[in-house]
């Protein structure tokens, strides 16, 4: 366990048998040794005899009509085997997660900069790149829409005419993907009764997931006319569902296997190179590998929706929230991706973890000619959290209350009702999480001051200052601030989605030892699901040896590695299947050996009676007859939100995290150093405590990035200005502070082991806590993230401070 982590948990609960390496232990990753030796095969590492390299030609324009495409010059390049355009597509021409609006290759129009137009396969990646550059595409540029005003103007170009999706009928303009209101109580009456009202306009920039392992995969044509695709993705089966129609193949001839995944964070939910590599492989009859470089990656996946948010909070004099009005406008870019679900989250979670008796919320996502936006860690809840937490601070200031005290007075708890009417029916320790982060001692001030050990002379360690190694200052004009925030995130797929996972578990005797084999299609993207599956099998089956098979589409769907859902859903599926395997084993024992109905458990490779006596070694019961079962696991059903009122039992589970940020700001240069970022989170049950810490740390880091560093800058022309790690800045180890944690384990009785999905909640509250701290340090209003130096210093008319 890390320095500085405190865990609060209820008395130990019985969890079947006691097995080393089981549930609740900080077990090491089964793929960890391969990853530290460099042997782990990521999707970009794959190689095949005879393989070709694919490359994608992309649109340079945000909105243009394609007048003509001439591929002759590219085809003539020695080493080029194939060039494909829209005209070559064999079957379905569009795909999409929720709405099939995205062309595999653009036909007569491109709707965003970077949209795929043509594909090349060649012997060497550089030949493919150069050949693609020789493809001549004649474009006629069209007017681009880039925000709500331009997208919903009466004469705005309609990006997707003839929409037939299920949201089309209820939106006011065809360039609105989806609109979700949430209405509860009587806001107008509450507004008349409010003693204090605060309003605010907020803005969240476009964040990139910036996983390190680029989009990549290898498609291998098969003898049956099908294709085997090895790919880094978040959900094999949703890729499969979209691919088979595009390839014009029956589903059983499209087989996907998960290659090593170098991070995901939402960016691998949509297809990127999957269809392209398969099409090239099927056309050439040769294996085809596609690997994006970083520049292409910025165009090759969806980003976090940038958002504009308007809020009005009204409260009584003693700090009770009476009402909230909110409007959240999300820029979905050129294609729908998961925008409808992001809208649902923003609307339903848009008031934060507070009791609000009266509310009127509206969230919309737009179609524009900006880069497509979709899933990223926090998924609609991140944008809202920045705004509602800024509002809570503003309200506290207006009331003369401590910001944590105001939050405490309004904090929801188990038994509270969401603005959607949903009862919060499991622990919601919002006030306690805030109390924990506030109770921590503050880090010492002026840590940059040093004293020379030999001479006693004072010095400065610039590494501890804003600006760090750039040696920007020596502590002049540096002020400290402290800020707090708390957030609420849903776990699992919501709004009536049939969200399930599948696990196949085999228990057998191998060389005199009981061995469990777990096979799921869960995408291990770094989160540690494979570790958790092995732990669950050990606990439930009393074995030591567990084999985790590679994820592929020969087993049922595991759903997506997103929405903080995999330990709950696929962990739950592994557990349930293990329980069924155990039941079958015990049934054998009852039939063959007359074991009692109640009492026997599996432990240490044996079947043990209630009194502790050994009934039989597992291997004896198994003999030559392995037990293998494949079962689906579902969480309790949810309901869609009412399209007018937003009422409904929409979410499976809620996840809460609170942060306290301590920052130091160089007020002359506008530089921010986050000195400490403490977090407290309820995780229900820490299946693997070390992995839980890693998730909270990693989520907090991405929240820090959004607060002070990360933004894809898109011009009014729809073009990305900074598609590189030189210009898009993610936190380095020098930007990250110490992150002490408080971890609560308050069981949710509806979830396997009482666990709560954990991956996303930390990303929500880190951002507003840091910005609150910067506000406190500088006295500036700061309505937009990321906060930049120019927001922290007064620029003259020439733009110079």
């Amino acid at each position: 366990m890390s320095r500085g982590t405190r865990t609060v948990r209820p008395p130990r609960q019985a969890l079947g048998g006691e097995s080393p390496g089981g549930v609740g232990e900080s077990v090491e990753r089964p793929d960890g040794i391969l990853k530290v030796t460099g042997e782990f095969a990521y999707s970009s590492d794959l190689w095949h005899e005879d393989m070709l390299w694919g490359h994608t030609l992309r649109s340079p324009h945000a909105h243009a009509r394609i007048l003509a495409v001439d591929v002759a010059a590219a085809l003539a390049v020695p080493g080029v085997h194939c060039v494909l355009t829209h005209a070559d597509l064999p079957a379905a021409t569009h795909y999409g997660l929720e709405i099939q609006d995205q062309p595999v290759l653009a036909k007569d129009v491109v709707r965003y900069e970077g949209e795929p137009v043509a594909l090349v396969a060649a012997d060497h990646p550089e030949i493919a790149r150069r050949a693609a550059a020789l493809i001549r595409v004649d474009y006629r540029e069209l007017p681009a829409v880039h925000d709500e005003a331009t997208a919903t103007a009466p004469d705005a170009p309609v990006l997707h005419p003839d929409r037939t999706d299920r949201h089309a009928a209820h939106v006011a303009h065809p360039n609105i993907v989806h609109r979700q209101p949430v209405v509860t109580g009587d806001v107008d009456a509450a507004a008349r009764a409010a003693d204090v009202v605060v309003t605010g306009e907020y803005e969240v920039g476009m964040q990139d997931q910036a996983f390190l392992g680029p989009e990549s995969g290898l498609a291998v044509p098969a003898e049956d006319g099908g294709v085997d695709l090895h790919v880094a993705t978040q959900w094999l089966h949703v890729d499969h569902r979209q691919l088979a129609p595009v390839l014009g193949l029956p589903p059983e001839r499209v087989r996907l296997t998960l290659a090593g995944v170098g991070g995901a964070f939402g960016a691998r939910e949509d297809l990127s190179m999957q269809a392209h590599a398969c099409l090239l492989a099927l056309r050439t009859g040769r294996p085809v590998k596609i690997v994006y470089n970083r520049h292409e990656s910025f165009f090759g996946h969806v980003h976090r929706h940038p958002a504009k948010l308007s809020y009005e909070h009204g409260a009584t004099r003693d700090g009770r929230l009476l009402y909230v009005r909110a409007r959240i406008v999300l820029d979905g870019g050129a294609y729908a991706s998961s925008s409808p679900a992001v809208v649902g989250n923003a609307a339903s979670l848009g008031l934060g973890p507070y009791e609000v008796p009266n509310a009127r919320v509206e969230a919309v996502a737009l179609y524009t000619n900006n880069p497509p936006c979709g899933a990223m860690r926090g998924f609609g809840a991140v944008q809202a959290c920045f705004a509602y937490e800024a509002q809570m601070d503003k309200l506290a200031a207006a009331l003369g209350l401590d910001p944590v005290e105001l939050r405490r007075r309004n904090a929801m708890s188990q038994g509270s009702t969401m603005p959607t009417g949903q009862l919060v029916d499991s622990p919601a320790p919002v006030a306690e999480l805030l109390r924990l982060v506030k109770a921590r001692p503050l880090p010492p001030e002026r840590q940059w001051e040093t004293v020379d050990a030999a001479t006693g002379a004072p010095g400065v360690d610039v590494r501890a200052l804003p600006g760090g190694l750039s040696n920007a200052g020596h502590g002049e004009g540096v002020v400290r601030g402290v800020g707090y925030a708390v957030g609420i995130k849903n776990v699992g797929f919501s709004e009536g989605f049939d969200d399930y996972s599948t696990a196949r578990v085999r228990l057998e005797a191998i060389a005199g030892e009981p061995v469990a084999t777990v096979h799921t299609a869960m995408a291990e993207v770094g989160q540690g699901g494979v570790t958790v599956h092995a732990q669950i099998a050990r606990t439930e089956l009393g074995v030591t040896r567990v084999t985790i098979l590679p994820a592929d589409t020969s087993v049922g769907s595991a759903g997506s590695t997103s929405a903080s859902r995999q330990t709950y859903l696929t962990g739950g599926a592994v557990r349930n299947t293990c329980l069924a395997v155990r039941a079958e084993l015990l049934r054998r024992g009852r039939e063959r050996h007359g074991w009692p109905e109640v009492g026997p458990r599996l432990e240490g490779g044996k079947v043990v009676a209630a009194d502790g006596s050994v009934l039989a070694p597992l291997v004896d019961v198994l003999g030559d007859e392995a037990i293998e079962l494949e079962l689906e696991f579902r969480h309790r059903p949810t309901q869609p939100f009412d399209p007018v009122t937003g009422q409904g039992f929409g979410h499976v589970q809620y996840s809460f995290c609170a942060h306290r940020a301590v920052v130091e700001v160089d007020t002359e240069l506008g530089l921010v150093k986050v000195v400490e970022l403490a977090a407290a989170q309820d995780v229900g049950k820490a299946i693997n405590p070390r992995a839980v810490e890693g998730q909270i740390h990693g989520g907090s880091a991405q929240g820090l990035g959004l607060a002070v560093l990360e933004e894809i800058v898109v011009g009014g022309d729809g073009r990305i200005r900074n598609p590189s790690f030189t210009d898009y800045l993610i936190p380095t180890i020098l930007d990250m502070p110490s992150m002490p944690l408080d971890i609560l384990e308050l069981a949710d009785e509806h979830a396997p082991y009482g666990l709560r999905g954990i991956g996303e909640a930390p990303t929500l509250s880190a951002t507003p806590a840091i910005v609150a701290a910067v506000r406190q340090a500088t006295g500036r209003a700061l309505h937009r993230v990321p906060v930049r130096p120019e927001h922290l210093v007064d620029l003259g008319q020439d733009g110079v401070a």
Partner: protein
Amino acid sequence: MRVRLTVNGRPRTADDVWPGESLLYVLRERLGLPGSKNACEQGECGSCTVRLDGDLVCACLVAAGQADGAAVDTVEGLRRGDELSPLQEAFHEAGAVQCGFCTPGLLMAAGELLERRPDPSDADIREALSGNLCRCTGYEKILDAVRLAAARTATAITTEPAGEPS
């Protein structure tokens, strides 16, 4: 062109190398050593960090021809037989590995740090690893791992018989 290298102590030759190919491309695609990673290919992320005649470099920024005749050490050379190096072991045990894409580069950079400074402060670790991006961990467990490896190495040195240089 032909490029001759000594990779992890063994002489290696790559043929038909195109002059524009990077050392990273030659390692990964021509010599079967994909442990060094390709995350940004412009020297910003450190995922391709290797030692070139002992110096830390981003292999993506070194033209393969420039490295002709040099000694290159990569993540594949860190293990001694079946035994992990103290840093590899510490990264695995401390939870410093999630997706693991940054891990090879971090191991090379942290190894170079511990050679120079066997007992680094946290600020030293942060400075030495500031050229290596990690998107998963927030770096806390990476700090834990380097501290752990440093502590174990120090213990190993002090328990060795006197006079044995380490």
